[in-house]
């Protein structure tokens, strides 16, 4: 965090009369923008109609001006399920067929298994379409680099599917993070807990391996790759700096069904030293990450611990927990609060000004749309207006490369240095 960021924030905050508005000034505009993404029309093709592809179809249908005209999946059952959700869309058996035959498609969303992203992304970019590629970007750093290189050379939009950068609550909380409200970073902690086998049922045993690619150690990035990449990018987005090393461990705590990919993992990233006096070599703050398929308690969140406050982000919700000795900024006294055992969190409400003026502040707790919706809305707007994506191919490369190295650390049990060069295209 630097001083000019703080000054910039305070300039906005002090320009506002009467407390609450400080919370709300940008995000209200954000929410309004997201609801009406663009004046133009965009014809979209979906590549991959599995669970994520179907979720994407649902969110895209909320966006004005978006028409889903093509869907492809190599599995007929999944293709049918996708087509049931999108009236008027044409089904295709492969991405190549879609790219060739669906001439009207201007933009594609890639929601296939991670290890298939590279070829599809390169073909889609090469065909002159705008591309939204789900995170993680690919399963090897080489593949990520190839995609990022092609994206950089393309005149079209490429979005890396990292949702924090479009999430109104995350963007709001980031302004606090970069201000005196949180001040200096002490540590970061994030988790993703869900009780599930992480298996896709295979009626045909011959398709078991293909469907359960996440459990195939040869191609899976494990929990830190498939789930953690979004959370790693949240830290990248907030810090603008990247971890320098990672170590980790993992094991099978519940699903002893022959799998080799850990169902429970932990890792520790060393963040760059912020210039404070270090003990034992001057290492920076630690970002600790854990994920499990064996317990669902407290789901998925990230916490940034600062010297003045902690910020907790949980995708649809966000809170700030202030230290007693932190300076008061004025607006907090009017803010909505929630009790968490011994602590009281100030609810970060994205469209607070408008809601407060209507006496409906409490109704504003939680985002009105899913996190995925805002990421897709940003992509659509970028594609229609010809503007850079909220999350670039470079952001995707960095977050995915860090996740790939973290998975390597978990699998090998070794501490891995994250070289700057690993995070760059060439």
């Amino acid at each position, binding site marked *: 965090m630097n001083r000019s960021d703080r000054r910039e924030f305070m300039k906005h905050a002090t320009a506002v009369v009467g407390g609450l508005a400080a919370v709300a000034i940008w995000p209200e505009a954000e929410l309004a923008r997201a609801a009406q993404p663009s004046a133009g029309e965009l014809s979209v093709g979906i590549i991959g109609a599995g*669970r994520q592809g179907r*979720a994407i*179809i*649902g969110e895209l*249908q*909320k966006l004005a001006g978006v028409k889903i005209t093509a869907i492809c999946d190599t599995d007929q*059952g999944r293709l049918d399920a996708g087509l*049931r*959700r*999108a*009236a008027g869309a044409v089904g295709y058996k492969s991405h190549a067929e879609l790219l060739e035959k669906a001439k009207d498609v201007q933009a594609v969303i890639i929601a296939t298994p991670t290890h298939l992203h590279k070829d599809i992304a390169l073909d889609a970019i090469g065909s002159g379409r705008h591309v939204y590629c789900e995170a993680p970007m690919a399963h090897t750093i080489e593949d990520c680099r190839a995609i990022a290189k092609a994206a950089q050379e393309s005149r079209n939009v490429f979005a890396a599917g990292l949702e924090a950068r479009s999430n109104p609550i995350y963007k709001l909380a980031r302004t606090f993070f970069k201000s005196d409200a949180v001040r200096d970073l002490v540590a970061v902690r994030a988790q993703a807990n869900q009780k*599930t*086998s992480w*298996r*896709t*049922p*295979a*009626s045909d045993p011959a398709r078991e391996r293909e469907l359960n690619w996440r459990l195939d150690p040869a191609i899976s990035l494990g929990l830190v790759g498939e789930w953690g990449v979004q959370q790693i990018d949240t830290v990248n987005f907030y810090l603008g700096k990247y971890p320098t090393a990672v170590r980790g461990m993992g094991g099978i705590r519940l699903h002893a*069904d*022959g799998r080799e990919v850990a169902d429970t993992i932990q890792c520790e990233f060393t963040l760059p030293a912020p210039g404070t006096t270090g003990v034992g070599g001057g290492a920076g703050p630690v970002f600790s990450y854990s994920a499990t398929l064996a317990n669902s308690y407290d789901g998925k969140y990230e916490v940034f611990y600062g010297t003045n406050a902690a910020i907790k982000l949980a995708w*649809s919700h966000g809170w700030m927990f202030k230290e007693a000795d932190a300076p008061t900024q004025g607006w907090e006294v009017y803010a909505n609060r929630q009790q968490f055992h011994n602590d009281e969190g100030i609810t970060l409400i994205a469209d607070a000004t408008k809601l407060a003026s*209507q*006496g*409906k502040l409490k*109704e*504003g*707790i*939680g*985002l*009105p*749309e*899913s996190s995925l*919706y805002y990421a897709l809305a940003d992509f659509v707007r970028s594609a229609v207006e010809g503007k850079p994506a909220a999350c670039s191919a470079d952001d995707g490369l960095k977050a995915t490369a860090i996740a790939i190295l973290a998975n390597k650390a978990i699998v090998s049990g070794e501490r891995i240095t994250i070289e700057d060069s690993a995070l760059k295209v060439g």
Partner: protein
Amino acid sequence: MPFRHAVFAMGTRFEIVLSGDDEVFLRAVAEEALEVIVAQEQQWSLFRRDSLLARINREGWQRPVLLDADSFELFEDALAVREQSGGAFDVGVAGLMRAWGLHEHSMLPAEHVADARSEESGASRGLRPAVLNDVPPFELDPVARTIRLTHEVAALDLGAIAKGHALDLAARVVTEYGIESALIHGGTSSVVAIGAPPGEEVWRVAVAGGEQEEHAGGPRLACRMIARLRDAALGVSAHHGRTANLEGRRIGHVMDPRTGEPSRSHAVVAAVIAPTARLADAWSTAALVNAGLGVARPAGVCAAVAVRRESGIVWIIEGDVAEHFEHDERIARASAARWEDEE
């Protein structure tokens, strides 16, 4: 060995039982089916800002809202049951529920919420659309596959149909994977049965109804009726479920949309068997409010309704009794005479 799994959703516990040998496969199927239910909660929750229902209630008056094919069918069924039940079932009760203090945290725009205790509030604010306008609270466009609200303050509450809809979609997942014997229920009040348990003819599901009996854990309703299910669904509605206090008076959670007030019907419990859980759910509410299926005899639907009479609780059966409902002889011998009288 049957495989069991469960998830919390829609304010209750959904449970699935699958028959088969391959536990790894069955677990994966169960998880996918339950995921569908959780996704349906995200669509139809009144308590989340980001649900599709919240969006319909927020924007549906200004512009049509696009639906997927399954959701469109859900609203088609809601319209059909409203029509056939003479308005006893109507999803346009969100404002009413809130006004009566039943869904205090629902995500309704403030202007949709009136005070039910005020004489004029219901009428002036369109909280009783069925009575006031004789038109449904929403209309569907099958070509564009959209829904649009018909009143400025209309607001939908799918509490009496969404659980069944979620069960139908979960059952579809299970059958698509070739599983021939399964049972899924939501909070025990909505049940969908696929096939029958291995070696059995039907899934037998007990329906509680009748007098309260004292048990070690406190009073509970005696079990009087067994629903026999095979590739069919059961919905159960009762007045003894959720209640609220209004000025010292205890009111039930089932509204009669035609009066704008909690239902005062003499039915205590209504159990309905139908081809889909969505229809069973909706018709169980209608049968509770109407104390029976009424004049309508929708195809494939039959009901067992426990009605309070001076002589006590009696069951009224409508539809194909012998096949779908059987009296639970083990604990209901004492009331058998009354049962026969009723028939």
